[in-house]
C-alpha cells in the first residue's frame, strides 16, 4: 500500500504512518520534557554555582554563603576524621581509607568517580545478561522460560540506556567513556556466571547485580553534590529495583521484600580499577 502525491511516493500506508507518528509523539511526550527539565536543572545548577562564586567576595550575602560553605566543609572534614562509623552506612567493598580508594591518579575524581562506578556497574549488568542469553541460546541453561528470556533482553536494553547516559556525562566532562567493566569484582562475577547451569542460578546472580545497582544509586543520591547527578541516580534506582522485583517473583520470592531500600549491598568506588 503506497500513495503517490506531489513528487514522491509514500512507501507505507496511512495507517502505518499514523501508528508510527503516534509512537513518535508518545516518545517525544515522554522524553523531551524530561530532557528539557534535566537540562534546565543543570543550567540552573551551574548558574547558581557561578553566582555564588562571583558574589562570594562582593556582597554580604555572598560572604555568608561562602562562610556557610566553608563551615559545611569543615564540619564534613571533622566528621570524616572521626573513627565513629555506623553499620550499613558505607557501601560494600568500601575500605573507608585512603589505601582502599582507587589510584590517586585516577582519571575520575569527585562526583565523576561515582559516574564512572555507575557506568561500570551498568556495563557489568549488560555483559552478564548478554552472557546469560548466549548461554541460554547455546542450551547451557536447560529450558529457559519465555518470560525469563524477555526479562533478560529488556533489562539488558535498559542497562545499556543507563550506561549510555552515564558515559555521556563522562565524555561531556572530557573524560574517556567506559566501555568495559573496570571493577575488581568482575572476575568473581564472570566466574559465578560461568558456573551456573540453570535459569535459577542466572536469575539469582542477576538479582544480586540489580540490588547492588539500585542500592548504589540510592547511596549516590545523598552523597553526590551535582544536582544533575542526584536526579539521574534517583531516576534509575527505581528501575533497577523493579528489575529486582520481577526477578524475585520469578525466583519464587516476595517481590517487595523491604519497606525501605537499604544500602548494605551498595557498591563502593573502591571497586573501580581505573
Amino acid at each position, binding site marked *: 500500500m*503506497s500513495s503517490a502525491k506531489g513528487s*514522491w511516493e*509514500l512507501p507505507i*500506508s*496511512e495507517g502505518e504512518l499514523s501508528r508510527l507518528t503516534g509512537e513518535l509523539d508518545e516518545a517525544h511526550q*515522554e522524553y523531551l520534557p524530561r*530532557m*528539557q527539565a534535566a*537540562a534546565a536543572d*543543570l*543550567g540552573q545548577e551551574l548558574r547558581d*554555582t557561578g553566582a555564588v562564586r562571583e558574589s562570594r567576595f562582593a556582597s554580604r550575602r555572598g560572604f555568608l554563603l561562602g562562610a556557610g560553605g566553608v563551615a559545611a566543609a569543615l564540619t*564534613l*572534614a571533622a566528621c*570524616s576524621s572521626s573513627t*565513629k562509623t555506623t553499620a550499613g*552506612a558505607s*557501601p560494600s567493598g*568500601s575500605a*573507608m581509607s585512603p589505601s582502599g*580508594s582507587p589510584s590517586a591518579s585516577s582519571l575520575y575524581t*569527585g562526583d565523576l568517580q*561515582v559516574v564512572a562506578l555507575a557506568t561500570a556497574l551498568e556495563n557489568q549488568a549488560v555483559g552478564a545478561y548478554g552472557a546469560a542469553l548466549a548461554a541460554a541460546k547455546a542450551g547451557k541453561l536447560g529450558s529457559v*522460560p*519465555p*518470560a525469563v528470556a*524477555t526479562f533478560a533482553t529488556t533489562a539488558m536494553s*535498559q542497562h545499556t540506556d543507563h550506561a549510555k547516559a552515564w558515559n555521556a*556525562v563522562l*565524555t*561531556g*566532562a572530557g573524560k574517556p567513556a567506559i566501555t568495559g567493566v573496570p571493577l575488581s569484582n568482575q572476575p568473581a562475577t564472570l566466574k559465578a556466571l560461568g558456573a551456573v547451569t540453570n535459569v535459577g542460578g542466572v536469575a539469582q546472580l542477576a538479582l544480586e547485580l540489580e540490588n547492588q545497582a539500585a542500592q548504589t544509586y*540510592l*547511596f549516590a*543520591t*545523598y*552523597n553526590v*553534590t*551535582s544536582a544533575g547527578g*542526584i*536526579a539521574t*541516580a*534517583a*531516576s534509575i*534506582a*527505581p*528501575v533497577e*529495583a*523493579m528489575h529486582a*522485583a*520481577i526477578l524475585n*517473583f*520469578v525466583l519464587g520470592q*516476595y*517481590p*517487595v521484600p523491604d*519497606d*525501605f*531500600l537499604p544500602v548494605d549491598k551498595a557498591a*563502593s568506588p573502591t571497586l573501580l580499577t581505573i
Partner: protein
Amino acid sequence: MGEEHLDTRLLAELTEQSQDLNSDALRITRESLVEYGQQQEPVRRWWQRGSVLAGAVGGAALLGVGRAAAASSVDVQALQTAASIENLAVSVYTTAAGLSFIKDGNKTVAAFIAKTTTQHTAHGQAFNAAATQAGGKAQTAPDPKYLAVVKKMLPSITTPADVVKLAITLEDVAAQTYTSYVSKVSDPALRKLFASVAPVEAQHRSTLLAVQALLAGGGAALIAIPTDAAKLPAAAGSVGFPDSFYSTSMASPVTEGAVQ
C-alpha cells in the same frame, strides 16, 4: 486505507519541525552535559562523606538533633504531601482488602495488599516523623487531588483488575513524586528518605503491572508465590518495567498535600 488523503507538503513541514526540535534538544543536552562535566570537584570524595551522612540518617534516628534547622519549608511541605499520598494509599488498600472479590479471591493478591498496606503505613509514619522533627505538623489527611480521583473511580470498581488498575496509578504517582522530591529537598537526610521509598513504590507498581497482565491474559492461576515461571507468558518478563528511566512527569507539587 485512505491513502489519498495524505497531505505530503504538510507532512514534509511537520517532519522538518520535528527534526528542528530534535536538533535543538540534542544541542541543549550536549551543552548541558559539557557544563555538567566542567563543574565537578566536590569538597570531599563521596564515599568519605558517606559514613558521616549515613550515620546521621541511619535507622529510626533518621532526623536527629538540629535537623529542624537544616530542613526548609519546602522540605516540610514535601514530607507532608508524601504523607498525604501514603495516607490515601493505606486507605485505598484497606478498603480493597475488605471487598469480597479480594477477601475471597486470589490469596496472593490479598497477601500482597496486606503487606503493601503495612509498607505504606511505615512510609507515612517515616514522612510524618521527619515532618514533625523538622518543625512541621504531621499530615493525617489524604492527598486531596488523588482522593477525588479515587472517589470518582470507586463506584466502577467491581473486579480485582479494577483494584489493580487504581493501585497502579497510586503507586506510580507515589514513586514519581518521591523521585522528584529527591531533587527538591535541601537536606541530604531527606534525599535518602525519599530515595529509599521511591524504589519500593516502583516495586509495588512493577508487581501490580505483572499481576494486571496475568489477569488480562487469563493467567490468574500464575499469580502465586512461588509461581510457575515456566508457564509465565513472555510479556510477563518485561511488562513490569516499561521505562529505562523513572518518569517524574506526574509528580505532585510539594504544596499539594501540605498542611494548610
